[in-house]
């Protein structure tokens, strides 16, 4: 039998243990990172967050904002957020931002990812609430729901009720909740409060407040 210099022990260590370790290492990292991300592609960031691209650059993932949040609204993203792993975000349907007057989360941010100088909660712009499912909105079907409007911390500013004729019955009104994007802070309280199983009003990325029409 020819001597190859490869002992059984050496073979087990190099030929079996090493591939096993690499498989375990690769498997662990894949299990961590390769998971389906939020289909909306929008993360509701804590109050005072700078524009998303810069936010991802500036956040050092220290978690102080999440620790400062008295309602535990702020969660740290897992690896399903891809490069956003470890960044803070709010899942409005679980616990929305309750707009603390002193904004404790933004105050503790060291890196400028959240604007620590933010004072006025009405200046917060996390996103904008949008009624995404008009067919299932009870108010738009003619019922007196209006829960989003009642719950809105900026009631009659960010959400107003506009009454119009209900053509379906011919005699009733439709009390439509209307979101005003220049006032809505995107706290997600309406999304959280929506009585439907799937919220018909959700917070989405704010449209840039730039005039796209001609003013006469």
């Amino acid at each position, binding site marked *: 039998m020819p001597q190859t210099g490869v002992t059984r022990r050496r073979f087990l260590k190099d030929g079996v243990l090493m591939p096993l370790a690499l498989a375990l290492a690769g498997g662990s990292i894949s299990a961590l990172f390769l998971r389906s991300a939020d289909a909306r592609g929008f993360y509701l960031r804590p109050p005072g967050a700078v524009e998303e691209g810069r936010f991802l650059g500036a956040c050092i993932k220290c978690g102080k904002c999440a620790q400062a949040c008295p309602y535990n609204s702020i969660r740290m993203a897992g690896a399903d957020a891809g490069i956003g792993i470890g960044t803070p975000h709010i899942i409005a349907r679980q616990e929305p931002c309750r707009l603390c007057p002193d904004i404790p989360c933004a105050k503790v941010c060291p*890196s400028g*990812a959240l604007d620590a100088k933010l004072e006025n909660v009405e200046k917060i712009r996390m996103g904008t609430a949008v009624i995404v499912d008009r067919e299932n909105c009870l108010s738009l079907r003619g019922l007196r729901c209006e829960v989003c409007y009642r719950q809105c911390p900026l009631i009659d500013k960010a959400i107003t009720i506009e009454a119009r004729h209900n053509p379906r019955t011919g005699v009733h009104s439709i009390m439509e909740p209307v979101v005003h994007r220049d006032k809505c802070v995107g706290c997600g309280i309406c999304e959280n409060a929506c009585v439907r199983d799937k919220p018909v009003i959700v917070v989405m990325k704010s449209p840039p407040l730039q005039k796209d029409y001609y003013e006469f």
Partner: protein
Amino acid sequence: MNFKWWPIRRFVQLSAVVLIASPLMGLNIFRGNLAGGELFGFSLIDPLAFLQATVASRIFVAPFLGAALVVAAFYFLLGGRTFCAWVCPVGLITELNDRLRRSLATGERRLPLSASRWSLVVVIVVSFLAGVPLFEIISPIGMTTRALMFRDWLTLLMLVSICAVEVAIARRVWCRSLCPLGGFYSLLGRFSPLRIHFSEQLCTHCGECTRICPHEEVLLPSLDHDCSHIYSGDCTRCCDCIDICPTKALSVHVIYK
């Protein structure tokens, strides 16, 4: 009196873990993690996290720089990679993991220590170009500390994969050669006043120190050419060599000049 450094070092390492987990226990001493924290209300920032976030976002916050400089000055005075051996929770885990590797007698391969400096360069350049702090995304330190802070145990898979590679393939490869934070602190450690002193009169060249040292290359200039101090910035000042030396040829020394 047989003084040993390792119980003190283990105590400091465990204290760091307890501090990071302390907000969950309702204590109000420490907030945040090792990238950015607040000890008794005093802000502390990992200097590498500051560098990455600043070059990635192009946002400059003066107190952020101040807190990073305080931490950089602290580790400079105490030896740079002191962070790796005394504070970093990943260092603690890989150190214990290395005992397992020793008992299995596997994974003897080594990558050069200088690779961590290249890793640092890659992290800074990619952070600047891509606009995201590269190391903070893959950092097992961040993942481990967040796991402690928020009970997000899934992210510990990163630590599992590091331990698997270190046991079976290359010894302490993450801490020695891949971690850019280690590379960063090795630059501070190169010029730090706190050093391990080597006495050639007392040394018997038994080689115990090179067997225990995680970065044994740093001992070679002293053992081969009788340098009076360990000059390499890659020395973590873990003091394991001092504890193991049978003739007390090694000691902690502060150089003033």
